[in-house]
Each structure stands twice: as C-alpha cells, then as structure tokens.
C-alpha cells in the first residue's frame, strides 16, 4: 500500500498517454483532462496499473460550462487509499465519450444519468437510455440554456398565479 499524490499519479498517466493535460486550479481539486475518445483507455490504465489500482469509480457526472460539457470522473483506490479526478470535455450538442461501463459496474447507471441530464453519448455503453426522466422527455434539463416544455403529455408544467 503506497499512497501517491495526485500530481504523481498524473505524471504516471502522462508518461503513458501524451495527449492528456494536468490542470491544478487555486481552489479545490486538481484534475486531468483527457480526450473524449480516450477515457476508457485511461480508465483501464488507472484500474489495471498496480501502482495506481483505482478499483472504485466513486462518481461520474458532468457540468455545462456554457461552452462545453465537462464529463467528470472521480476514482478511488481501496488498495492504496488515494483518489484522482479526470475530465473529458465534449461539445454541448452531440458530444460523445468512450464508455467505461465495461470496466466499472457502477458506471452503467452513472453514464445513463449523464446522458439523461446532458445528452452526452457514451460510445460502447450497453443500454444508453434515459434513467431518471421518462423516455419521451424533451431536452436535457441540466444544460444551462434548457427551456422547460409547457406541457408533458398534456399535463401542464406550470400553473397560473393564484393571486
């Protein structure tokens, strides 16, 4: 068991994948930016490299920064007790990321949730359908410019003021 710092982990990943970028902001956690098509390869390296052994995908989520969707991964290693964050930045419309559902069982549901809320496609996902919203819902609600539909199947989503 050897706990590595995040920057050390980033160095190890960089030695293997040239196209990644390490970003350490002033506040909060630092993260690694990975090309969207490479997420599965990098995740596999993080999981299978004995010195890293990231066996637990804690969190997989996304955010809309108004220019791009940042799909964010948080990993943890039970063996070494270290953690790591990784991001893939994709276009706001029609963006696609390589799925890690084959590597982590937990990613299956989490990727469906990101697809449901942001419309990001995960290539290689076994069953990429909406998970929390109804299948026939229009739009992706966590996008910053999301416009709520006036009604859903004839049920109004707003109501007039009572005053």
């Amino acid at each position, binding site marked *: 068991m050897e706990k590595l710092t995040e920057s050390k982990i980033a160095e190890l990943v960089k030695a293997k994948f040239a196209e990644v970028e390490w970003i350490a902001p002033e506040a909060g956690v630092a993260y690694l930016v990975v090309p969207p098509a490479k997420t599965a390869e990098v995740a596999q390296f993080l999981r299978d490299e004995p010195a890293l052994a990231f*066996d637990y995908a*804690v969190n997989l989520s996304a*955010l809309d920064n108004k220019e791009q969707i940042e799909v964010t991964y*948080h990993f943890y290693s039970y063996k070494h007790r270290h953690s790591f964050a990784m991001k893939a930045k994709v276009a706001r419309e029609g963006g696609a990321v390589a799925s890690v559902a084959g590597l982590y*069982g937990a990613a299956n549901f989490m990727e469906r949730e990101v697809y449901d809320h942001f419309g990001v496609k995960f290539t290689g996902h076994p069953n990429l359908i909406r998970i929390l919203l109804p299948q026939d819902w229009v739009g992706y609600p966590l996008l910053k410019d999301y416009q709520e539909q006036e009604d859903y199947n004839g049920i109004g989503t707003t109501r007039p003021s009572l005053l």
Partner: protein
Amino acid sequence: MVDALKKEDGFHTEEMVLNMGPQHPSTHGVLRFEVYTDGEVMRKAVADIGYLHRGIEKIAEKVGWHGFMPYTDRIDYVAAMTANQGYACAVEKLAGIVVPKRAEYLRVIAAELNRISSHLIAVGALGLDMGAATPFVHALRERETINDLLESLCGARLTYNYVRIGGVSYDLPEGFIARTIAFLDHFKPIVDEFNRLITDNKIFRERLEGVAVVSIDEAISYGLCGANLRGSGLKFDIRKDEPYSVYSELDFEVPVGICASGRGGDCFDRYYVRILEMYESIKILYQCFKQIPEGDILADVPRKLRPPKGEAFVRIESARGDMGYWVVSDGTDMPVRVHCRTGSFAAMGIIESLSKGLMIADLVAVIGSFDIVAPEVDR
C-alpha cells in the same frame, strides 16, 4: 436440462414478465422492477427508477449556496443529518471555511443519533418485509425517542436543516445530554432484545442467509458502499479510513459481515453489520458527550457566500454509505453545479446482475438488505 425435461413432458414454458411496483410495500418508496421470470425463479429484475426525481441538482443552481441546505434533507430523508453534513463539508472545503470544534462535535452527535434511527428503520423494515411485524414496531418506538431528541435540538423531526455552512444552527438545548445518555443507557439492552427477537430467529435467518451473495470484487466494481460493502467483508469506513470532522478523535470499531452462512456478503451479513453499527454509534455518542468542548457553533460566513472559482468533491459516511458531494463554483453566489453521489443509487445498479437465479420473494430481501431509500436514488 430442465428445459429438455419439460419439452419431453409436453409442457409449454415461456418467460413471463411481471411488474413489481411502483406502489409496492416492500420497495421502500417508489421503485419499479420489471421481473423476467421462469416460474418462481427470476432471470433478471430490471430496475426502473426516477419516480421520485425532483431535479434537486437543477434547483441548486437557482437557490444559492446557503439556500440549498434544506433541499439536501430531501435527498435522504431517513438520514437527513448526514446529507446536510456532506453538503456543508463540500462547500467548506471549496471556500476554505474552518468549522469551530464544538460545531463539529454537534454535527457528529446529530449524525450518529440519526444513523441509529436510520438503521432502526432499515433493520425493522427488513424484518417487516420478511414477515415479522413486531420488531418493526419496536424499532419505530425507539426511533420516536431519537426524533424527540433531534426535535429538541433543531425543531424538526425528519428534515432537519440543522447543519449550516460553517457550523450548526443551534447549540444543545438544556438537559439534552442527560436525556440522550438516559436514552442510550436504555437503548443498548433494546438492541440485545432486538437480536433475540429477530437476528437469532430461524425463519428470518433462513430467508436471508446465502441469498444474493456479493463478492468483494463485485461490490467494489458496482460502487457499493457503507454497510453493503462491509457486509461483503471489506473493512472500510470513511469515518475511519478517510477521517473527516472529529472522527479521528473518537474510538470505534468498523464491523464487517460475520459470514454466518459460510458465504460472506449475503443479505444477512448486510443486515447484521447495521445492527453492529448501532452499538458503535452508541459508543461514539458517549465519547462525544465527554469530549465536547465549549465554544462557538458557527464560523463567520458571509451571507452572500462566494467560494473561489474551482471545484471540490467530498465523501462522508452516511447511513447508506458513501455520500459524495461534487460542488463547482465560478466565483459567484450561485453554484455552477452540485451533484450528489449516493449509496442507494449504486445499490440499484447491482440488482439487475444480482437478481439472476434468485426467487421472486428474494428480491424483497435484496432491496431490504441494501437499505435502499427511493428519494436518494432519484434525487
């Protein structure tokens, strides 16, 4: 083999799809399963979730950093204190706020009381699902006292909104410590009684032992956490292994599944870990009352909080395991993103692969043993 026999006998067999839920008493909220069955045996149970989706994460982007606290109660209303605490910890980490020591102790006291009441619901409801109605009533009776205690602390019995960014909202009311210690003295023998009533009950055990075995590797891959992970035998508790708040100053054990059936990680192990954790929470509470220092309960936090640009991800040990808050700020008083990673959501993810080959009645045991709380799945 079975299929061949049936064909020779001339029986017509086909897969049957059953609908279970969303309004089913054992689904602990509003969950729905499509169960593909072959007779009494499930081929798979496909979870259909989202009935309680309230878009809490979208709301966070509209109500500001402080304003989101009451909504965290609604993420997990059975253990709302830990949901409060997790969000507060994440924002404090991002904004670099130091919480006064007394407030940290108050949070731990509230969270551990809430953990006991949440585990009481979990073990009681599992008994109820398995057909034992009496233990559930005993569990609710004890939980009532905890609700009274927490009500005297913060005014609410279920959705507490007790924790603030930078501390807590109220100090201990008069007589709280004496009343809580009286409750704990009374409660420990009750857990023993609960064990005699249900843990050692043969019918109860036979419904759970050896059912839905999850190996450690599977549990880790599917992101199971908390009692579900420890039930599979991995000794890991965030309070112990990645300590936050004042847990590093407190002495407690991390119980793991006892492997009673010889196959660790079954429904009974997950159940029994929760029973053992109640004993540990009692221990923690006694220590807290001895060690709690005097002092402030709330740090000086501006009303219009503007955490610096950046993001933080903080995990805490909720009653349902690993509760992670991912908060992102762009330097304004409105969050860019708040995401909550919950244990129940992870547990729902494993059910499809786990249900293969189980009886339909076992599905109820599986849901109950994972201690799934539907609003935490759907948020």
